[in-house]
């Protein structure tokens, strides 16, 4: 733990420097409705802690979690399907790639029209943003398994399922963790975009409401909260990864 802190020391010092610059600059500009100082933002978070933490954060997190869970299921399913069957690989891969060229933010308002202001329109935005990197990364992971290793197991008399469990899954695992770490911030962004476009609660929605009230610090407060949450979630996953994976990539 202490070593980790020391490793991050340069980054922390740099961040602190930036914040200080921001603080000084914002104090000079003195227009807190467009450029609040970090201190003002922190104060705002403290003032609004009740509604932020008990109403809006849980709303955003539930969208994120549902979206992430569906994306993971969908992504893993598609990746395995493409890995098992050349036909589905040919059929799906281009479509999955194409899905990424959809400018999600511009069609998201349509989702609100179709699915209403409830949770599902936001979940859909999240899924659309995250299932692609998960599918492609996990698929690459499954592909990275060496044919020779599969063959070796086959000479031991292994079944297809045993080969999957003992070669494919371990090979794909590091890729899977990369995918999750990538997908967490993306799904949070997706959820916030969805809420920004139309919602009754959530940090994205809250940020937008503050915007209409020209409350600069109020716009930033939920954003800071989102980043912190994303960082903590990624940290947690990294910890889990270190526990589970004793090796990485080529030896």
């Amino acid at each position, binding site marked *: 733990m202490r070593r980790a802190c020391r490793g991050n020391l340069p980054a922390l010092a740099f961040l602190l420097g930036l914040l200080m610059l921001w603080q000084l600059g914002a104090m000079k500009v003195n227009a807190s409705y467009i450029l609040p100082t970090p201190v003002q933002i922190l104060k705002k978070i403290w003032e609004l802690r009740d509604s932020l933490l008990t109403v809006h954060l849980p709303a955003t997190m539930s969208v994120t979690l549902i979206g992430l869970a569906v994306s993971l299921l969908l992504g893993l399913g598609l990746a395995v399907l493409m890995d098992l069957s050349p036909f589905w690989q040919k059929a799906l891969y281009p479509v999955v790639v194409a899905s990424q060229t959809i400018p999600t933010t511009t069609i998201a308002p349509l989702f609100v029209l179709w699915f209403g202001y409830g949770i599902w329109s936001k979940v859909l935005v999240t899924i659309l943003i995250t299932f692609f990197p998960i599918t492609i990364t996990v698929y690459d992971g499954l592909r990275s398994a060496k044919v020779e290793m599969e063959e070796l197991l086959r*000479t*031991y008399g*292994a079944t297809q399922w045993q080969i999957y469990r003992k070669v494919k899954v371990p090979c794909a*695992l590091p890729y899977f963790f990369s995918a999750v770490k990538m997908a967490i911030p993306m799904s949070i962004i997706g959820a916030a975009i969805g809420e920004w476009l139309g919602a009754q609660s959530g940090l994205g929605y809250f940020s937008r409401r503050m915007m209409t009230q020209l409350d600069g610090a109020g716009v930033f407060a939920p954003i800071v909260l989102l980043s912190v949450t994303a960082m903590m979630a990624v940290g947690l996953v990294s910890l889990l990864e270190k526990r589970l994976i*004793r*090796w990485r990539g080529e030896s």
Partner: protein
Amino acid sequence: MRILEFERVSYQYASEDFDIVDQLSFSVESGAFHCVIGISGCGKSTIFRMTNGLLQPKCGTIRVGGIPITQQKNYCGYMPQRDLLFPWRTIGENLALPLEIRGGFSGKEKTELVEEALADVGLAGCRDKMPQELSGGMRQRAAFARTMLTGSDLLLLDEPFSALDFLTRISMQEWLLEQWRRHKKTILFITHDVEEAVFLSSSVLVVEKTPIRSLREIPVPMGKTRTRQDLANPEIVALREGLVDMLRKQVGG
């Protein structure tokens, strides 16, 4: 007793218009140690890959222990060209792989068998190391131990020592001979190296040309227990030169 028999076996790669192995018949006596030599790309690995069932012959029958291989599983231990230890498993877990696939071993039995196999190849105490932490020679010994744990009497070793440096390699050769004498397995060993082939084999099987129609068997006049000094024997030197000539003619023509 014949442990391995090829009967008029042919194989053709889909991308080629001829049979690389063409009506090949040969057999191997139980307990023998044969090196298979031939120039690069002549089809040595192809013969191994048919024997272990990874490739299906176009026609002909391969029998191990008198039974066609299509009717059995886990009848030979195959060690491919690279050591192929799984980098995410410890050495012990790597060795346990064939046992896991065969099934029917308790955790304790597995640990015991693995410990025994490791001690046998001089790697006692390496059970919890990762493959990356071992030297090239140690990795090959671990891979060999894993091959032994398939429990088969027929071992197919495809250039196991070709990536090792000269000194490690000659000590591994001596080590392998010792293993063979002790465990009474039948070993087929592919190599490019004529000296290695002569030192290890009871008789050398030479691939004289592609397509492979026959293997030419050349006995090596040395006992089971041999040392590197025996290689300086005039008879052996002549044999070695003869083999080199045989191979060089193919590369030239």
